[in-house]
């Protein structure tokens, strides 16, 4: 009997104080081994200072078909961007 190791998604925090970012996935029997494998597979060239692993089946994702209802409402709300407002040059830096 053979069972395939579960799939883990790997997130790495880079050197520059950024948030953890998804870099890829790998198979491992448990979280401890997943972190060890992630170190070997995804940080061979100092790509990171911290690793998160999450078993892929625990990730809930939005579906591509929801794209419209989820993101279209923000398209019309351009006043959320600072460039929407004209501020006269005389006011100085703002």
């Amino acid at each position, binding site marked *: 009997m*053979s069972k395939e190791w579960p799939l883990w998604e790997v997130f790495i925090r880079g050197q520059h104080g950024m948030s953890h970012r998804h870099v890829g996935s790998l*198979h491992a029997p448990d979280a401890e*081994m997943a972190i060890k494998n992630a170190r070997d597979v995804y940080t061979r060239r100092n790509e990171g200072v911290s690793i998160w692993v999450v078993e892929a089946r625990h990730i809930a994702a939005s*579906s591509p078909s929801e794209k419209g209802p989820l993101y279209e409402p923000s398209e019309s709300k351009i006043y959320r961007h600072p460039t929407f407002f004209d501020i006269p040059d005389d006011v100085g830096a703002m």
Partner: protein
Amino acid sequence: MYAQMVKSTGKGLKSRDEMTEEERHFQDRIDAGEKIEPKDWMPEGYRQTLIRQIGQHAHSEVVGQLPEGNWITRAPTLERKAILLAKVQDEAGHGLYLYCAAETLGVSRDELTERLLDGSMKYSSIFNYPTLTWADIGAVGWLVDGAAIMNQVPLQRTSFGPYSRAMVRICKEESFHQRQGYDIMMKMARGTPEQKAMAQDAINRFWHPSLMMFGPSDKDSVHSAESMAWKIKINTNDELRQKFVDQTVPQAEYLGLTIPDPDLRWNEERGHYDFTEPDWSEFFEVVKGNGPCNAERLEARRKAWDDGGWVREGLMAHAEKRAARRTAAE
């Protein structure tokens, strides 16, 4: 090219009229340069062709460790040994990035491995040639990784998101591989007459198999036409081969080594080098399984898979036991 003669649906290009509405929308997204992500709708042919291509690419990375691994224990210095070890470890990593990309299409890694081991999936023909001397390690890095880069750089723009992202990572690392190979060749070419002869012998044996890596001409292939429309293949095999020759000839000249092709010469009119095509009957024999090392390579992969079985199962059993213990304690 690490994926050779990947078959598409074989039905040829569909005209817009023949496409369903979903297919038209899909093709429009690709034409607009959008990336297709795993959960997006895609034609079944696109999915299956990508599984074959990415899978073959991944297998090539993994099997590609064997000819080089052959020299890790015999590298001439401790530094060369450490470098080669790092390079071979990269190849394992590349295989893993690619298997993960393939898995997002709904095939499991174990399934892909089993298809490699039963011979229903291929890996690049180049890895069926032996590495007989240390100079071969130089030639493999310089020529084989050089040819792979030619193919992989444009694939960074491929339409399938996970494949494209894997290619970006791989290309960054591949450049180290080619340079370390060329560095070995420079040392050998400037060494004793015997060392220079070894370097020349390595080019003599690896030149034509490297040209074969791009696969036979596919300018009339229905498979390639479809793959190019889907942007999972960016250039024709002939384009990439020509580019490789044009780039490599001056590098060989710098080494003071001769490319084993008496008809190789610069064609002012075309702005490219003219060169002799490799022996395609040899290529087809190697692809069929009759190359110098086919049996040995597959045997090594089968042995690794079988011998590793108890480790895969043991670690899984251990993880399950610990998880059960944790649940019981809560």
